[in-house]
């Protein structure tokens, strides 16, 4: 898609006026509150970014503990540790927390920290809104977690909450679950508005759209996806709320509704949501790979085009999550073809990264290790995704562990590894110190081993016929599950190393210069490390520079 290009003169004008506005606010801020109040009331993009990242990290561990409860129960056949009701609550909460509480806020946190730095802006466009959208999150997830202690327990119908299991048959806490999703959704929407406003209006003079780093580009497109689909999610859960509490029957066949409609609406949101969780990861990897190959990213423009076309196609493929609900042949074919098409732009991205490595000058610091693992394992997840797109084969794969393996490959060594890679990459900028390379390597290798031990056997158990979301399984799946559980615990425990790295890095370590990685080229590396609270109060003028990327 052709990007929007504001004429040069208005751009300069606009950033000049906004920076003036910002400067005033900063003055006010300096004399502002200290201690806890400072964090509660902060409007600084770096502090809010940090809050987001810490929040996401704590959710990552809470969601991880739920996953370990699941894996512990599945270590052996039979019911040993938990009852099926509680098991279902764990799978549901794990999914919800990881998707809405860990991955999405982590990307928003990275965006908060890095987008203003990468486009040469003094702050986000709407700093107060930024504060508000962060503080909605603890409220939302506090509410969601509190459902665990309610009578009837937490939501137990899977993170996809299909009606009528979630409406007519859901626990009493379903209403609270809906409310907390509403709040989390509002938070994401406000974050997206802020990011769009920042990217479109606050770029340094001379930075054209096609000069922006890919992390900025992918986030811009992600933000548009959020604006387009979060309201649909809000609509769906509002309909659920009405079905549960106000006697409507949107999804109840008895009242003239249709349970399948729920799935259409949910996946119309849900599929773009999947890309919301992966596009910014593409951006991070596209920053790290060239930096450590010391060579410009191959095919910058095609990366942008590919991101845009993945985003557009993501609206045309939702039915591939529901190939077995009973659809006419033409519908199955249409959605099979569109789904297969997504493989093309996704493939282009992988080829571009690989070609960037070709004839580079490569070093293997921790961020690069995670980025490389991302490329390999995301591609494996892509392959299983392609297999799932083939409708007749999907009839056998659907709702088995093969699907679980697929989406964990794109989300864990995919999205999560990219987030971790981004953290290692930008830690010198955040703290002024390099992360401990030795600990980082341990963290990396244990994570890679853990992830593959956990999720690779799931391909086999799925193909052998193990359905998803079951607390107990037939004996032929026992070996695979035991390996998966061991892998899960290795992965889970090795994330404690990440905490160690973070604490160590905040407290000290090798001092990092402004340009912490010698191959890194973007604007954030022109400000000192650690980045002072206020940067780019006078925007850098890039008009005189030769175009950055060509």
């Amino acid at each position, binding site marked *: 898609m052709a990007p929007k290009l504001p004429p040069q003169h208005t751009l300069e004008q606009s950033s000049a006026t906004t920076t003036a506005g910002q400067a005033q606010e900063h003055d006010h801020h300096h004399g502002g509150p200290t201690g806890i109040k400072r964090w509660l009331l902060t409007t600084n993009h770096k502090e809010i970014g940090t809050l987001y990242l810490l929040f996401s990290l704590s959710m990552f561990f809470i969601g991880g503990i739920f996953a370990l409860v699941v894996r512990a129960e599945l270590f052996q056949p*039979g*019911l040993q540790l938990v009852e*099926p*009701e509680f098991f*279902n609550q764990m799978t549901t909460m794990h999914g919800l927390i990881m998707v809405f509480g860990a991955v999405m806020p982590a990307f928003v946190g990275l965006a908060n920290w890095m987008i203003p730095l990468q486009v040469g802006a003094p702050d986000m466009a709407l700093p107060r809104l930024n504060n508000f959208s962060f503080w909605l999150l603890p409220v939302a997830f506090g509410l969601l977690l509190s459902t665990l202690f309610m009578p009837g327990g937490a939501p137990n*119908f899977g993170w996809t909450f*299909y009606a*009528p*299991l979630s409406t*007519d048959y859901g626990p009493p806490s379903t209403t609270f679950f809906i409310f907390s999703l509403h709040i989390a959704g509002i938070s994401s929407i406000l974050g997206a508005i802020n990011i769009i406003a920042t990217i479109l209006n606050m770029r340094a003079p001379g930075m054209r759209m096609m000069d922006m780093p890919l992390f900025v580009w992918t986030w811009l497109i992600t933000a548009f996806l959020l604006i387009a689909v979060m309201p649909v999610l809000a609509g769906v859960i509002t309909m659920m709320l009405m079905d549960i509490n106000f006697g409507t029957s949107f999804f109840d*066949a*008895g009242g003239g509704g249709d*349970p*399948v409609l729920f799935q259409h609406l949910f996946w119309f949101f849900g599929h773009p949501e999947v890309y919301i969780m992966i596009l910014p990861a593409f951006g991070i990897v596209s920053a790290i790979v060239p930096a450590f190959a010391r*060579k*410009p*990213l*191959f*095919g910058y423009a095609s990366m942008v085009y590919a991101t845009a076309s993945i985003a557009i196609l993501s609206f045309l493929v939702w039915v591939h999550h529901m190939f*077995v609900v*009973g659809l006419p*042949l033409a519908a199955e*074919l249409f959605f*099979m*073809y569109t789904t297969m098409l997504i*493989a093309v732009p996704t493939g*282009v991205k992988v080829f571009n990264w*690989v*070609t*960037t*490595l*070709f*004839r*580079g*000058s*490569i*070093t*293997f610091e921790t961020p690069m290790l995670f980025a*490389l693992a991302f490329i*390999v394992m995301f*591609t494996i997840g892509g*392959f299983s995704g*392609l*297999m799932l797109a*083939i*409708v*007749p084969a999907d*009839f*056998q794969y*659907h*709702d088995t562990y093969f699907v679980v393996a697929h989406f964990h490959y794109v989300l864990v060594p995919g999205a999560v590894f990219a987030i971790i890679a981004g953290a290692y990459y930008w830690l010198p900028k955040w703290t002024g110190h390099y992360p401990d390379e030795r600990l980082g390597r341990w963290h990396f290798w244990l994570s890679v081993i853990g992830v593959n031990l956990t999720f690779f056997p799931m391909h*086999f158990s799925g*193909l052998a*016929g193990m359905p998803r*979301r079951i*607390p*107990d399984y*037939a004996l032929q799946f026992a070996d695979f599950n035991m390996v998966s559980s061991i892998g899960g615990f290795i992965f889970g425990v090795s994330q404690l190393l990440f905490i160690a790295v973070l604490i160590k890095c905040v407290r000290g370590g090798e001092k990092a210069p402004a340009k912490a990685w010698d*191959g890194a080229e973007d604007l954030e590396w022109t400000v000192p490390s650690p980045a002072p609270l206020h940067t780019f109060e006078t925007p850098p003028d890039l008009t005189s520079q030769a175009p950055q990327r*060509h």
Partner: protein
Amino acid sequence: MRMVLAWVTGMGAAFLLAPAVYANGWNMPVGVTEISQDIYSLHMAIFWICVVIGVVVFAVMFYSLFRYRRSQGAKADNFHENTTVEVLWTTIPLLILVGMALPATATLQKMYDPSGADLDVMVTGQQWRWHYEYLDEDISFTSSMSTPGTQIRGEEERADEYLLDVDNPLVLPVDQKVRFLLTSDDVIHSWWVPDLAVKQDAIPGFVNENWVRIEEPGIYRGQCTELCGKDHAFMPVVVHAMEQDDYEEWLADRKEEAEAEANSVDREWEMDELMERGEQVYGSVCATCHQDDGSGSGEFPALAGNEEMLDDVDWHIDAVVNGVSGTPMAAFGGNLNAVELASVITYERNAWDNDTGDVVQPSEIQELLE
């Protein structure tokens, strides 16, 4: 260097393992229908295409990682565009995709064959069992998991068919086109037998269609694949495929049994008989929710010592036959016959120290049903 070596060994091992894995039956079953075999070939074809693409891409990647290490003095080049290469790696995948889409489309067309069936079976999902109705034969029965709770709790050794065995399997003839009509009484379930390559959602209020032509006699097992509540893991599907003659014999036996039971409705039943039959029915239909010992669980009330039920026989009968609105209690009037209903009600009123001494006769229930 060490890292690269480790990667290469790891990936190599993975690719060498792949065929071994598939020889050891960790793969998708080939199945016993033409469709399932087509799907299997399709699956293997895509799998190998992915493997080849993967090998090529990762080979280039690991070669670059190895060859262009800075520690070995690699100097970075500066190229960042090449239209020819970019056109190629967009076009080639497109062609490969078209190559995959063609056989997939053909298989799919084959599956959507609406031609007439030799036998129609209505499959109804219920929390947490399947109900089968042979539409042309006037036979229907409920099929529930028969694995006992003692095995699940690990108090007894687990059988080979652990979690995959039922009291009444669905019996089908081979070499006949069997049409399934699927629906549900409560939430969405999904009926799946891997060897038959049939997976279809059962949706409350709507009917889905699917079909199968089994080529080999045998027992084929599957499970519900759509999360349907607490006992989602415990509603297996078992299909027993027989030669036509055996099937007809089974059908005749089944009908005879049903007829005998229907004829016995009018006679006076003894308490012992009712209790025996009732225990059977209770175990297959009621125990998933109300538990074997009648102690209930969660939203499912205990039946042992349940005063509302014990004080009022008519309420009890009405609850079992017509369900209790506003609760998960389903109406069993359509699923169970008069004998089954009478015996299970009698059983519930006398088991677990309920000891009311009430005997509900099948004839009473029959009257109610008419």
